[in-house]
């Protein structure tokens, strides 16, 4: 089970994301393109930083607590997933708070992007 320790926290955040998306009717799938554009930039920047830092030895990962798949034979696959799931949760939190602050906007048919 130890190899899933990092993955478990990602699964927790992912579960939160699903519930926030459904609970607030955020329909994130209709904004998939927008999210992919946003996350492409995030992935590029933060994976480059991560790769550089791991190469330099700033931080390192316990091989026993990651599933054992690596990007560029250095970054655990969990790091890649982290930079997808966390930005997704950030966007969903933002959209949920916007929805909360605008209780009047009940028209689900509008293609409002935010």
């Amino acid at each position, binding site marked *: 089970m130890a190899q899933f320790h990092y993955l478990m926290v990602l699964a927790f955040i992912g579960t939160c994301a699903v519930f926030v998306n459904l609970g607030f009717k955020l329909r994130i799938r209709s904004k998939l393109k927008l*999210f992919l554009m946003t996350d492409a930039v995030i992935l590029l920047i933060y994976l480059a930083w991560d790769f550089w830092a791991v190469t330099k030895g700033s931080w390192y990962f316990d091989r026993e607590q990651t599933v054992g798949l690596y990007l560029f034979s250095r970054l655990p696959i969990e790091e890649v997933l982290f930079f997808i799931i966390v930005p997704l949760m*950030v966007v969903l939190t933002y959209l949920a708070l916007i929805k909360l602050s605008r209780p009047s906007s009940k028209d689900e048919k509008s293609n409002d992007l935010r």
Partner: protein
Amino acid sequence: MIYADVALNAVLVAVIFDLYLLRSQMMTRKIFWKTYFLILPFQLLTNWWLTSNEIVMYSDGEIIGTRVAGAPLEDLLFGFSMILLTLSLWEFFAKRITPDKVAK
């Protein structure tokens, strides 16, 4: 450049992007700070899990040594930069995909 330097620079870069390059100016909006402070406890929880289990470990010379919820203080700077940049990029692209729906 140790983690502390890079993390500080990351915040600086994110702020410059937000205010001047992407011009989303999330930092001037209340909703951004609400979002940030809602996410912060979850970041601390994640940090605590990753560091107390020693899933992620940090080299001594790379951090200033102050720890918050088990993780280096620098992690809060990293987290802030990523949250700001994510939302700033989101608004930037949102305006361009649907130009009729301008923010604010």
